[in-house]
């Protein structure tokens, strides 16, 4: 059971959070201009890495804020927690 550090509320049990998938996928500004393949890439295709993953969570049963987490998808170790809008921390796979 993960212990996730909400950037505001501090560490809380996984059950208080909702998972939001891969982070840093911006909605294309001019969606109409994209072809079907580019739109599918935004809509469905995911990196789904084994190892370091930048992902979004939200404190659904707490302060209801969204934030980003850098987590290892094998060890489940959480390497960084940062707010939406903050730069992706400079972590490389294997930095631990």
């Amino acid at each position, binding site marked *: 059971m993960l212990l996730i550090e909400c950037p505001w509320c501090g560490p809380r049990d996984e059950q208080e959070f909702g998972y939001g*998938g891969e982070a840093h996928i911006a909605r294309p500004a001019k969606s109409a201009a994209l072809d079907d*393949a580019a739109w599918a890439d935004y809509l469905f*295709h*995911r990196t*789904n890495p084994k190892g370091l993953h930048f992902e979004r969570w939200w404190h659904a049963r707490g302060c209801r804020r969204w934030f980003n987490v850098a987590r290892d*998808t*094998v060890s489940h170790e959480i390497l960084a927690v940062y707010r939406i809008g903050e730069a992706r921390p400079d972590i490389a796979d294997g930095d631990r």
Partner: protein
Amino acid sequence: MSVKRGAYSIWSLMRNALSYHENWQRAWRSPDPKPRYDVIIVGGGGHGLATAYYLAKEHGVRNIAVLEKGWLGGGNTGRNTTIIRSNYLQDASASLYEHSLKLWEGLSQELNFNVMFSQRGVMNLAHNEHDLRELSRRTRANWLNGIDSELLDTTGVKRFCPIINVSPESRYPVLGATVQRRGGTARHDAVAWGYARGADAMGVDIIQQCEVTGMRIEKGRITGVETTRGAIAAGKVAVVVAGHASVLAAMAGLRLPIESHPLQALVSEPIKPILDTVVMSSSVHVYVSQSDKGELVMGAGIDGYTSYAQRGSLPIIEEIMASTMELFPMFSRLKMMRKWGGIVDTSPDASPIISKMPVEGLYFNCGWGTGGFKATPGSGHVFAHTIARDRPHPLNQRHTFERFQSGELIEEHGAAAVAH
């Protein structure tokens, strides 16, 4: 090349008993990889081994290797709750799973390996008006697709499975169900082993402890793979690695519409027979059957986050149990003996991808989510066809990688919410 090996039967068992079982041969060889194969199948689970088997048997391809990074059947094949059924909603799914179910029905004989396919029926419960409507829709679609399915009312549920609590006082009372009597369970390991033995006998090289670490692609065409046991050239490479599909895709420079999630399951201690069918409930999130050893085999939905660890979190198990207590209050004093997790590759429409890929000679079979085991024979069968002919079998022509661009999805969330 083919390998001569004695058939399994009660006679061979008796004959070997006379020699204290000291003369049994290996079920499959452990060859070293050759420098080149016509087809390399990445992934030695049920689907990969079945693919190799049908490639060799039905398409005359002989120079095949199956590369497995661990041990055969060590992924989801050996970690699922072994439920087999074909009562899917969409035509494209139903026909594929029904094809698979038909293959299951003769599989022990086909493989000369008892996979213990036990057609004890699979019952899907309805707990509210919405469930009833969905089950009615699915069943009626099944009828017109020629798939056996029955609608039961509460009394029928009780008759079919007497230990279910159908009290209207229950929080989510049982209002009805569907049952597919041809559905059931099988012995998961045996499926991998049976296909491995069968494929090996036709000369397929099954290579365990051989992890693919890279793909060789030249001018848009696959030419081989890098492995922990060296580079191996190949005419075609077919990837069927369940939870790790994205990892292999990345080696080919591709991203898939796939997320990998933990899926947990558990068994109880063995008890004397009490449950003679498979009971599934998607709205209270549990499915349960009793194995031939007497263990109750149970599972639920996936953990919410992506993961490549074969373990999940406790709350999922707590939820399964709470749901189970509602349906089977008599189970309360039984004990969970073992639990485990697998990594499932979930796709946006809860349907698999069995497809050629943008790299020539590269094929992927993935995205089965929580329900791949039941499809093992059918998946291998149509995938072998896709590889051999370089075009899909009629049954998987809609299961393309490209459907996520066109939007022609095969939406099965309703049927597959806890699809096992």
